[in-house]
Structure formats: C-alpha cells, structure tokens
C-alpha cells in the first residue's frame, strides 16, 4: 500500500483517487457509480459540496444515502438501497443511461489504453487468456451510453497502447471511430489516477494530461504510462486532499474496505 503525504497529512492512493474524483462532480448531477472508489467519491461529493447529487447503482437504486460504516459489498445488495428515492429492476436502471437521464458514469478500471478503452475481460489473448477477468458487468453499457470518469491506479502495465480486449469502449480507435461504431453519445471524459488527471484531445481523442497530482512530475506520469501521453498547454497541479475530505472519507469507510 503506497502512502502519500502532503503537509503532514498521510493518505493512501485510493483515498487520493476518491478525493480527486469527487471534485470532478457537480451539485445536481446524476452519477451512475460503481462499487469502491466511485461510490465513495460520489458520496464524498454529496457530503462536501453537492448535497443534491443523485447516485444511481446498477443493482437498481436511485438516490440512496450511504450509511457510514455500512458500505455495500457491491452495488447489488440491500445496503445500496438505504433511504433511496426509488428501487427498480436492473434492466430499467441501466436503461436510464440509454434514455439519457445520467450525467456521469463512474467506474474503476483494470487496463486502459491511449484512446480510453477499458479491459476487464481478458489479460492476453481472449481465446487463450493468461487471466480470465470477471468481465463487463454494466461497464460496457455505462461506457457506451454516457460520459465517463474512470478512477484507477497509474501503472505501466495498466496504461497500455492498446488494450488486449475492449470490454468498455472509450474512443475506440480515436477521431470519429466511436460514433462510426454506432455510439454517437458519451465517451471517456476523465481518467483520475494517483499521479494525474487526464482527458482526451478533442480531435484525435488521444489521452492528454490536464493536471498533476501534488508532488508529481510530468516525467513520473510518462514513465508510468505504456504509451506517449499528450500534455495540455496548461498543466496544473491539483490541491492535495484536504483534512475535511479525508475525515469524511474515513468516517464513510472506517474499516478501509475500499480505501486501504
């Protein structure tokens, strides 16, 4: 477990991801959140500055309140429904993405490439995989239908030129290839890592560094990436996690189930 530090405050990489991702959200938005960092980040945003942010869970929940210390094991159990506004069938909650009611889809990632395609199905060749991963779940649906934030650890083996398998499409082969494949809406909007915040070039749809985490250099980011990154004309350094942010996070996940 990597420890990060800033001004006497220590935090884990997962905590850093939660805080940075939370800051990307806006009050009043509807966020389709996966388990782990996405769930925590969205809840953190609600507690900090976005009281009217609505969280949707794949299991079929609209607008629940997460009970601190009782985090659900996935987005499909009754803990996800506490104080929810509505509970509905899985297919129907996923159809909200297709109908367009969702602002942001928010997931973790196992492997990503320069065009923001995600792989959570196969490491190696799909016919003879080195590792069979658990698969798409709602990932393919979310990434096909709405604007996405992905939060993940920044490692060279995870940031590859081309994913072994496109489980959840980003910009596919760049430029207009996503729309041409039949996906006119949505796309990968932001990638948050423990090293940087990234977006995608408007034209080529290649991954582009927008900001660096506190204390991280451009070289560090590039060295931990398996392909050549673009850098925005104005790369900023983001403010490190504030004490209140970390305190809220630790109240939500006192057992560090998702933030260890």
């Amino acid at each position, binding site marked *: 477990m990597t420890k990060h530090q800033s001004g006497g405050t220590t935090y884990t990489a997962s905590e850093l991801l939660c805080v940075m991702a939370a800051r990307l959200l806006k009050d009043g938005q509807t966020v389709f959140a996966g388990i782990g960092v996405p769930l925590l980040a969205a809840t953190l945003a609600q507690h900090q500055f976005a009281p009217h942010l609505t969280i949707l869970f794949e*299991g079929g929940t609209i607008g629940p309140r997460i009970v601190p210390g009782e985090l659900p094991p*996935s987005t499909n159990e009754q803990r996800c429904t506490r104080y929810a506004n509505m509970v509905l069938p899985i297919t129907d909650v*996923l159809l909200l993405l297709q109908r367009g009611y969702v602002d942001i889809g928010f997931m973790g990632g196992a492997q990503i490439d320069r065009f923001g395609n995600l792989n959570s199905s196969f490491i190696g060749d799909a016919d003879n995989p080195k590792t069979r991963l658990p698969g798409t779940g709602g990932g393919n649906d979310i990434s096909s*239908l709405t604007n996405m934030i992905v939060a993940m650890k920044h490692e060279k083996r995870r940031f590859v030129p081309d994913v072994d398998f*496109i489980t959840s499409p980003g910009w596919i082969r760049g430029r207009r290839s996503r729309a041409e494949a039949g*996906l006119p809406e949505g796309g990968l909007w932001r990638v948050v890592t423990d090293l940087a915040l990234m977006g995608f070039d408007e034209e080529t749809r290649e991954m582009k560094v927008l900001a660096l985490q506190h204390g991280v250099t451009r070289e560090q980011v590039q060295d931990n990436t398996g392909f050549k990154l673009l850098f925005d004309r104005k790369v900023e350094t983001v403010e490190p996690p504030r004490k209140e942010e970390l305190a809220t996070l630790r109240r939500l996940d006192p057992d560090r189930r998702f933030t260890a």
Partner: protein
Amino acid sequence: MSTQSLVTPYRKLREDTLARDRGLREKVMSLEEAAKLVSDGDHVALGGCHLSRTPYAMIWALIRARKQNLTVSRSIASSESDLLLASGVSRHVVTSWFSQGLIWGVSKVMRHYTENKLAVFEEWSHMSMGLRYRAGAMGIPFMPSRTMLGSGVGERLGDGLKTMTCPFTGEELALLPALNPDVALIHVQRCDAYGNAQLDGLQFMDLDIAMAAKRVILTTERIISNEQIRRTPDQTRIPFFTVDAVVEVQIGCAPHECYGVYEPFFSHLDEYAHMTTEDAVKGAQDYLARYYYEPKSWADYLSKLGMDAVLDACRRGRSVHND
C-alpha cells in the same frame, strides 16, 4: 457462437406455453421434487444478482441431484456459479460478470474452469442480459439496443449479435436475441401456494426471467394464503400461471442475502474464498462435500453454517425495516 436455436421460434414458444397447465392450482412441493422439473441439458436462468436473492437452496438441490450439462444464465454470477462448474452440473455460464465479489478478488474457481477451457463463460453486457430476458418475456425475437457496439464483447458473440439500420431514424442498432430459458429458479420473500409472488426491495431481472422462462421454480421464505395476496394485488410481481413449483425454504439464499430478511453470511463467504484460493478444484470439492453432499437437509446445511451466523445475518437483514 452458433445462432442455431439461439432464439426459440415463435410457434415453438407458443406451443410450449399452451402445453403448460396454467390454471389456478396448488403446486407446493419439496426441493427434491422440484429438482425433477429440471432436465439434463436445460438452460437454467438464476434469479437475483451477485450476492442477492440467489436461489441457493434450489441450486443446492440440483447439485445434490447430480444434474448434468446445464447451461446457466444470470445477470451477475457469483459463488453459486463457481459451484455449478465445480460440481460438474454446468459447463456453460452466460452472464455479464462472474466472480465471487470484488472484495474477494477474481474467483479462482471461475479462472480454473474457464482458462483451462473446461467451461465457457459467455459474456454479454449487463443491460444486454436484461434485454434478452425482456424480449423473451415479451414474446418478441429480439430487442434493439445501443450498447456492445464497437467492443470486443459484442464482436466475440459473432452471430449471436446482429446489427441493423433503423428504418425510422437511420441509426445503427444492436439487435439482442431473445432468451427464453427452459427453467427459471427464483427466490422470493413470500408467495401463495399457486405461485403468486410478492418481492420486496431490489427486483433485479426476476420479473422478466419469470415471464420469459418455459418453467419456473419458486423458492420462498414463506407461503402465504391466496386471500392475503388478493388484499394487495398491486404488490404481486410474478403471476401464478408462470409458476410450476413452489417450495417453502427458509433462509433459502444462504450464504447470500434476501432483501429485508438477511444479509450475506460474510464470514462463510470468506471461508469459501479461503478454501478455494490455494487449490481451486480441491477447495471447491472439499466445500461441496462438506456443505452440499453431507447435509441431510437444508436445515442441516444451515446448521453447518452455524446458528450464530444465521442469527447475525438475519439481524443485519432486518435493518432495512427498522433502522
């Protein structure tokens, strides 16, 4: 993937449905009797999702009955599908996500059987699974949708996924083949002896699965009277005429959860994960021997999980009602 008989032809679907006894009649039976409604080679759809409302008691009965060659489908597959592979009951799981659960890492049992080509894990997007059941429930051969396009998931399905240009808008669409399972296994909080079921909380894909399937086996925490059902007909979610068997089995999802009744048995799931970490095959076999083949009854199985564990799961389960 072959499209051969991927979608049940309409005339066949209608014939099969017409042949069912759909009258208002009692259909209460034991787990063992209900297991006889499942034939080797059937496509069996499992209700619930991940750790929730898994029809575990019925799966337990099918494994004990040594069924063979079942194709299993579910929205999200967890340890129950591990065990269906490890027991030899199934060699083919159709789902969107297959692992015990994020907090236990990637399932070693799933990995062993799929990576060694002992079993097929046929992957569809989660919404696609739901829309396939929904098309089956509606009596249409496909559902148009807007996902899986441009992805390896879609590509890998070959002829299982078709595309078309919308004649109204010119848009590109994916066409998902209807799924009408031979049998659906669904666990509910309560139903009557005819099979009218009322489900609390998360519904998952169960309503569509019940309507799509050619036979439905309901397990239920409690059988209530038909008069009770008729007092709140707008709470009924599955109508009796889709149901072929009703089995009353308390704590019937253990070690998974049943909304409002019990939460998952986390310590037991940790134990299962631990047993299958080192040697997935031996671990799963040991687990099956201990919890599946040795118990004399479902109550005996629950007693192996432990009274403390049952009470703890139930205490946590009721929290949605009274916290």
